[in-house]
Every structure is written in structure tokens, then in C-alpha cells.
């Protein structure tokens, strides 16, 4: 039992931190200014704890805890590390954001920690009820965060949209759970896997339907085509740091459980691969078409997030039992997270009071007055576009190797065509920042954490790319 708790140590740290922040906020003992470092400390502590549990060597991989409800693997460990890092950097960049935007409360940081709890659980969940509960822990906190700026109509619209559709998704997920339970009398992934191994995927219609509903729920959460329509408005309505957090940590958590679920049985994976194949293609190209037409950065980044979901789906199509395909997913998630967090940190820092700078036009001439910020944004954009030697390039590189290795040459080539298309909107911002004259002086409140966050992330963009992954 102690062993089980030890495996969940990072989760407990984040959970305790969330409660602590909430209580301090309730008693008014903590200023907003100080809440950010506290939250950062919580995430840093959990990160270190996660690293330590991974390296003590006492536990064999694929350790199950709590009677198989949760499974801690190297895969879930690394996913948790990414999520904790996302929480850390979001707390960091939120501080500079709330210097300009006055709707911040200490509860904000508490909610980030709570949603991170849900995400951490999600990476480990190997049982449908657990997965549902962690999904809801995560989602409820995120709903609140999206609508945190109560006076903003856009935020209200966003939260309504997300809440409604998210509730549907939750319903789909429970429906799927119920059907699967009806079919196999168990909600454990492992039981579903053994059932399919003996009976085949199409033996019981209830199981087929259940799996279908659950995969729909996952596809909705990662904003894959055709369930991507919400993402543009929701990302646009949420405040900058929250959007960054959603785009990175949430996607990591969902992809972790998605990969876990799809891998429970080869039959399941093979049956779903043809559909995921088309979904991946449509997601990439649909996302690109949407992104090309956008005029504000948040909407463009939301659509580019859809495109990246497409890339990750390629990795998911190519996933197999060897270590390589799993680490490809994690590496690309980390690479995407570091560049996306970076650009949202930069936007949080530069957007100004009431998010007044949001469009491509608004960032014209940034390089003249703020050369370092512009350089950082350029690095993040180049990473998202997949230009070497950035992390984004290596992420895409591994995805394509993994796809070709799995015989999915068409997907690999289409992935590359899609990244040619995506050059257009990434370059557009770089061109605006560098090759046009400034219309304003880009004054912002002084902040140490904002620029520091950008610096660390910009360095990480290169550091991650030189970190070789294991096969």
C-alpha cells in the first residue's frame, strides 16, 4: 500500500498544493503576486518527485497500483513530467499576464493545480471509471479557467461552448463505459484487452459501440477532425496563459490515455488504424486551411494546435509495442509543448492591458522595439514549423520515421506537405515582426518571470532537440 502511495507522490504534491493555494486564498493570506511563485514551487517539487520515483529503480516498469486501477509506466511518467512542466511554466507566465489584466485571483493558480491533478491521473488511468473521473476533474477546472475573466463576453461564450460540448463528450464517454461493462462485465483496460484477444473485436456489438464512443470522446478532447470546431472559439475566448495550458498539458494528458487505450489490444489498434489514418489527414489539412485564414494569433495558434493534433495522430497510427513509437509520441508532445508554451508565455507578456495586442497587425515591427522578445517568438515559431535544429523539427522527424517504419509512407508524405502549408502562417508573423515598421512602442509592465520564462523555454527548444530518444 505504501508503495502505491509512493508511486502517486507527484499527484499528492500537486493536489496538496492546490488545496493549500485554495485555503490561503479563502483566508486572504496570499497576494496574487506571491501566488505564482508558490504554484511554481508546487509544480517544481512534483516534477522532482516524479523524476525521483522514475529513477529509484525499485519498481519494475508497468507497475500497477490500486489493484490495476492505475498503471505507472515509463510512458505515463514522462507524460506526467511534461504536464508538470506545463503547469510550472503556465504559473510563471501567468504572473506577467496578471500585471496587465486585473481579473486574476489566487484561486486561478489553485485551479491550474487541480486540473493538473486530473491530467496526472489520466496519464495513469487504466480503468474506465477512473479515466472518467480524472477526465472530469481536469475538465471542470479547465471550464472555470476558460471563463475566468467574467466580464469578458468572449470568455463567457467560450466557456458555454466548451461546457456544453464537453458535457456531451462526458456523456459519450459514460455511454461507452456502460456499453463495455455490459459486454465484458469489467471496466479495466486489461480485461477489455484479454476479452478481445479471445473473442475478437466484433464479437459483441456492445463492445464495438462502447469503444466507438470512447474514441469519439478522446478525438473531441484532442480537437481532431471533425470534432475540432470548438477549439478555435474556446482558445480565442480563454485568457492567454490558460489557452497555452490547454493547448499543451491537456493535449498531453489525453494523448497519453489515448495511446494507452489504443494499445490494449493489437486487434483494436488494427481495426482503428484505417479510420485514424483518414482522421489524421483531415485534421492536418483542415487545421491548415483554418489557420491560413485567421487574423488573430490565438485563433491561428488554436488552428495550428489542430494541425499538431494531426501529426500526433500520425504517431498514434504508427504506434506499436516497441519503445520507439511510444517515445516518439512523448517526444513530439514535449517538443510541441515547449514551443507552444513559449509562444503563449511571450503573448501573455506582450499582450498588454485587456489583451489589446492579439492580431498579426498588432505585432508589426516588434523586432525594432523589443528585439529579444521577437527573437524568442521567432524561435518558437520556427520550432512549431519544424525548422532544424529546433525541438519541433526533431519531433516531426521522429513522427515521420515512425510512420515510414510502420509502413505508413502516405501519411509521412502528407504530414510533410501539411508542414509546407503551415509555413505560410508561421512565416506571416515573423514577417510582420521583422519586416514592417512599428505602429507603437510595445510598452508593458515590468516583469522578471515573463521574460525569464521565455528565455528558459527558448533554450529548451534547442536543448530538447539535441536530447536523443531511446528506441
Amino acid at each position: 500500500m505504501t508503495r502505491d502511495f509512493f508511486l502517486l507522490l507527484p499527484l499528492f504534491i500537486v493536489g496538496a498544493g492546490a488545496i493549500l493555494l485554495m485555503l490561503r486564498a479563502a483566508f486572504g493570506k496570499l497576494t496574487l503576486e506571491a501566488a505564482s511563485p508558490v504554484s511554481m514551487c508546487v509544480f517544481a517539487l512534483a516534477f522532482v518527485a516524479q523524476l525521483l520515483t522514475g529513477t529509484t529503480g525499485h519498481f519494475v516498469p508497468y507497475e500497477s497500483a490500486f489493484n490495476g486501477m492505475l498503471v505507472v509506466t515509463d510512458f505515463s511518467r514522462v507524460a506526467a513530467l511534461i504536464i508538470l512542466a506545463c503547469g510550472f511554466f503556465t504559473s510563471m507566465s501567468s504572473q506577467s499576464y496578471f500585471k496587465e489584466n486585473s481579473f486574476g485571483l489566487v484561486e486561478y493558480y489553485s485551479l491550474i493545480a487541480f486540473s493538473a491533478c486530473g491530467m496526472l491521473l489520466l496519464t495513469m488511468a487504466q480503468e474506465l471509471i477512473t479515466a472518467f473521473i480524472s477526465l472530469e476533474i481536469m475538465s471542470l477546472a479547465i471550464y472555470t479557467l476558460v471563463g475566468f475573466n467574467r466580464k469578458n463576453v468572449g470568455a463567457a461564450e467560450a466557456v458555454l461552448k466548451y461546457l456544453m460540448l464537453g458535457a456531451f463528450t462526458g456523456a459519450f464517454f459514460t455511454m461507452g463505459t456502460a456499453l463495455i461493462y455490459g459486454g465484458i462485465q469489467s471496466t479495466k483496460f486489461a480485461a477489455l484487452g484479454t476479452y478481445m484477444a479471445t473473442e475478437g473485436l466484433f464479437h459483441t456489438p456492445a463492445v464495438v459501440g462502447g469503444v466507438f464512443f470512447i474514441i469519439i470522446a478522446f478525438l473531441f478532447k484532442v480537437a481532431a477532425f471533425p470534432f475540432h470546431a470548438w477549439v478555435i472559439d474556446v482558445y480565442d475566448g480563454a485568457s492567454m496563459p490558460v489557452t497555452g495550458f490547454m493547448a499543451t498539458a491537456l493535449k498531453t494528458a489525453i494523448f497519453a490515455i489515448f495511446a494507452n487505450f489504443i494499445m490494449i489490444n493489437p486487434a483494436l489498434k488494427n481495426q482503428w488504424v484505417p479510420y485514424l489514418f483518414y482522421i489524421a489527414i483531415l485534421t492536418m489539412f483542415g487545421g491548415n486551411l483554418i489557420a491560413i485564414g485567421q487574423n488573430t494569433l490565438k485563433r491561428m495558434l488554436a488552428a495550428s494546435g489542430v494541425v499538431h493534433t494531426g501529426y500526433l495522430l500520425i504517431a498514434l497510427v504508427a504506434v506499436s509495442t516497441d519503445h520507439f513509437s511510444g517515445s516518439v509520441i512523448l517526444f513530439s508532445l514535449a517538443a510541441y509543448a515547449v514551443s507552444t508554451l513559449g509562444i503563449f508565455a511571450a503573448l501573455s507578456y506582450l499582450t498588454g492591458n485587456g489583451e489589446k495586442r492579439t492580431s498579426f497587425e498588432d505585432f508589426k515591427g516588434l523586432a525594432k522595439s523589443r528585439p529579444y522578445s521577437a527573437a524568442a517568438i521567432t524561435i518558437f515559431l520556427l520550432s512549431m514549423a519544424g525548422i532544424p535544429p529546433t525541438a519541433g523539427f526533431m519531433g516531426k522527424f521522429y513522427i515521420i520515421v515512425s510512420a515510414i517504419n510502420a509502413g505508413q509512407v502516405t501519411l509521412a508524405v502528407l504530414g510533410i506537405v501539411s508542414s509546407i502549408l503551415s509555413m505560410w502562417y508561421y512565416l506571416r508573423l515573423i514577417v510582420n515582426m521583422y519586416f514592417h515598421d512599428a505602429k507603437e512602442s510595445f510598452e508593458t509592465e515590468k516583469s522578471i518571470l515573463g521574460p525569464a520564462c521565455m528565455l528558459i523555454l527558448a533554450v529548451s527548444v534547442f536543448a530538447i532537440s539535441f536530447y536523443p530518444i531511446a528506441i
Partner: protein
Amino acid sequence: MLEHILSSMIFLPIAAGLLLLLFPVAKNGARAVGFVVSVAVLILGLKLYTGFNGAGGMEFVERQTWVQSLGINYILGVDGISLFVLMAGAVLFPLIYLVFSTKPKGYYANLLIVEGAMAGAICAGDLILFYIFWEVMLLPIFFMIGLYGGEGKVAATIKITIYTIAGSLLMLAAILYLGVSYHSQFGGWSFDIAKMGAMKLHGTGALLAFVAFMLAFAIKIPIFPFHTWLPDAYTEAPSAATFVLSAIMAKIGVYAVIRFVIPIFGPEFTRYALLLAYLGVIGMIYCGLAAIAQKDFKRMLAFSSASHMGIIALGIFCMNIQALTGSIYQIVAHATSTGVLFLFAGVLEERSHTRKIEDLGGIASQAPVFALFFAVAMLASVGLPGTSGFIGEFLIILGAIKFNVVVGILAGTSLIIGVCYMLWMFQRVFFEKSKKASFKFKDLSGAEVAAFLPIVVIIIVMGIYPQPFLKKIEPAAKIQISSISQHVQVAETIVLDKGHKLEQK
């Protein structure tokens, strides 16, 4: 130092450029740093050149494991082919800092980065490493055109960037295809270029990979009909960037065809060589004719450069030792002559504030030394005997006639177009009556003369006594040719068989 000479030539300028970008430095300081670093690279290059013994294989090899699990290594090396492309860059770069004295800090910093990245692409012995440098060398050019270019800079920047990135991303897919094929044929992962030739590739996959590689390089060179980005980019780019693009970067495209396509895709290359050779000739004629019609001398030089790239490309598609040696020789000859011409065009534009040929005239009487140097570079570019351009073009035409008489004759006769536009332009700009823009045209200063003199001497020495240079090129060229000669023979016997059958009928 000597065992890491290539790494130093690559990373010294890159590090210096990045540091210049990071820290506030005055314009003159940046220029001085740029000059000192590029001279240091030149000294390293000369050391490399003298230490190079020219047996034909890779020399000065550096090898370091990088991503072990995927067989990606940090491998550098030079042979007789890459040596000359590398040296062309090393010799020419210091000139830029001497000629352009009043540019912003970013201008000099980007030049340093592009110098290092190009050296990296030339020396890389691993496909992934090559790809990384290949992409990185575009970024400084992107910023140089966009920040310091002419009026249509934004459109030109986007055009060149999207064009080249589209090409290189497809090449990335082909590189990965090679890696995966290697994995399936030999069991282990590798992207080492030296090992790629051992693979047996066939079928649609190999053909597509060949097309992807050729497309990336054809855009960079550029080969007709992928040249449409060139006139805009060359004209709108600041002179130093045009110089870099035409003198070195285009050559890396040619070099890459020799280094990657010929050994790896022997059968495909042999099959499509004639088609590609015709594309080279069409490019020569088409861009040459376009050059005649230009009113802007920089744009004229851009088309002239594209036209000459056509003949260099033709040289590698002829698949014999003469033409290949000629191509490599012509790479250096063209880099020195056209590179200098673009630098002179920059000087001309800065001092007369115009790029229109009709606004200029009579410069020869105002600036005789400038006119003399310009004439030497121009004559080398049109291939006058006694200049470096003659040797290269002669060898290429010789090889082309050997390869295919029609191609050879077309290429040989279309050289005359080059003479037309060059001499006509020279006549209008340097002779005739002085016009307003060329009044009081300042001649080259003593420092500039000293800077350009070595290049002019190289042009003439290479034209009169080519032997020492050819001696270093030929062994490596032979190795490259031998890798495809078997395919050529197979193709020839097929053609002969068909001929026999026709005769029998």
C-alpha cells in the same frame, strides 16, 4: 586544432554571428568582427587546402555519435569536390566586409551565420546533419532579404522561403525513406552518406525519393523551370545576400547533386540524365535571352547567373569525367566571377543610386580601375580564353558532345548569348556618354583594390594554368563517375540492343 579544422570553419562564424545578434555592438564593431572571423576562416581554409593530398577519398574526417539509436552521427569531411566549393566561400567572404561598410549589425551577423551554415552543408557526411545545415543556411538569407532588401522585399522573401522549404521538406521525406530502406536492408539504422551507395533501391519508392532530392536541388540551383523565385530574390536582396545566393548557395545545390544523387540514385539518374541535360540547356538559353531584355543591371546579372547555372548543371548530367570535372571547375570560376560581379553591382548601386542600365554611362573614364576589374570578371563569366571561365565551359562542352551531340552543340552555341548581353551591358554602362547618375563616380579605393586583386589574379591564374586545381578535383570526380558508370554501360547496351533489333527488322 587541425583535427577539428572543419568544425572550426563551421562553428566559428556561426558562434560569432549569434553573439553579435545577442549583444549590442556598434556597426563598425560588427563589421570588424565579421572581417576578422572570415579571415580566420580563410586561413583555416588555406591550411586545409595545403594539407589536402587529393587521393580522392574523404579527408579531415570528424566523427561523433549523436543519436545512437537512429544511427545519426556528426560526420564531417572533404574530398576534391567539396574542397573547392568550400574554398570558394572562404576566399570570397572577407571581401563582403571590405566592400559594404555602412550596413547595420544584423547584416554582418547574418552573413557570418550563413557562411558557417553553408560550410556545414558542404562538409556534412550524414544526411540528417546535411539537412539541418541545408535548412539553417536559408534563415539568414530570409532575414537579410526581408530586413535589408529593396522595395518588393516581403514578396521576394516569402517566395524564396516557401519555394525552397517546400523543396527541402520533400527531400526530408526522401532522406527518411533512405534511412528506413537502409534499416530494412541491413538491419541497423544509418544516415551515413558513404554507406548509402551500397543500398539497392528500386521501384516507385526509389523514383519518388530521387524526384524529391532532385526537386530540392533543382530549386536551389535553380534549374529551369524552377527558377521563377530567382529574379525577384536576386534583385530585391541586398547585394551581399545576392552574392551569397549566386556565388555559393546555388553551387551547394549542384554539389549536392554530385554528392547525394549520383552515388545513391545511380539507375534513376542515368535514366533521366538526358531529360535533365535538356532542362539545363533550356535554362541556359531561356535565362540568357531574358538577360538580354533586362533594363536593371542587377536583374540582368541575376538572369545571367541562372543561365550559367544551367551549364554547370548540364555538366553533371553528362555523366562523364570531363564534364563533371568541368562543372566543379566552373563552380569555382563562376563563384569568383559572378560573385565579384554582384559585389561590383552593389558598389555601382551604392555610388550611383540607380540600378537602371540606361541611367548609367561612361563610368570607364571616371573609374578606370573599377572598369578594368569589372571587365576581367565579366570576361571570365562569358568564358573568354585565358580566364577561369573558359576552362570550365570548355570541359563541360567537351563532355556534353561526348554525351549527346545535340545537347553539346546547343550548349556550345548558346554560350554566345552570354557574350551578347554582357558586352552590350558593359558598353552601355562603362562607355558611351556620361549620364547624370555616373558623374563623379568614385573609383575603387586602395583597400578595395587590394581586396579584389587576389580574386582577379585567381581568375587569370585558373584560366592559364589549371593543372594544379584539376589535379585535386579529378580523383574525387573519378570516384563519383565510377559509381554510375556501370549503370551508364547497362543503359548503353540497352540502347545498342534496341538498335540491333531495329536493324534486323
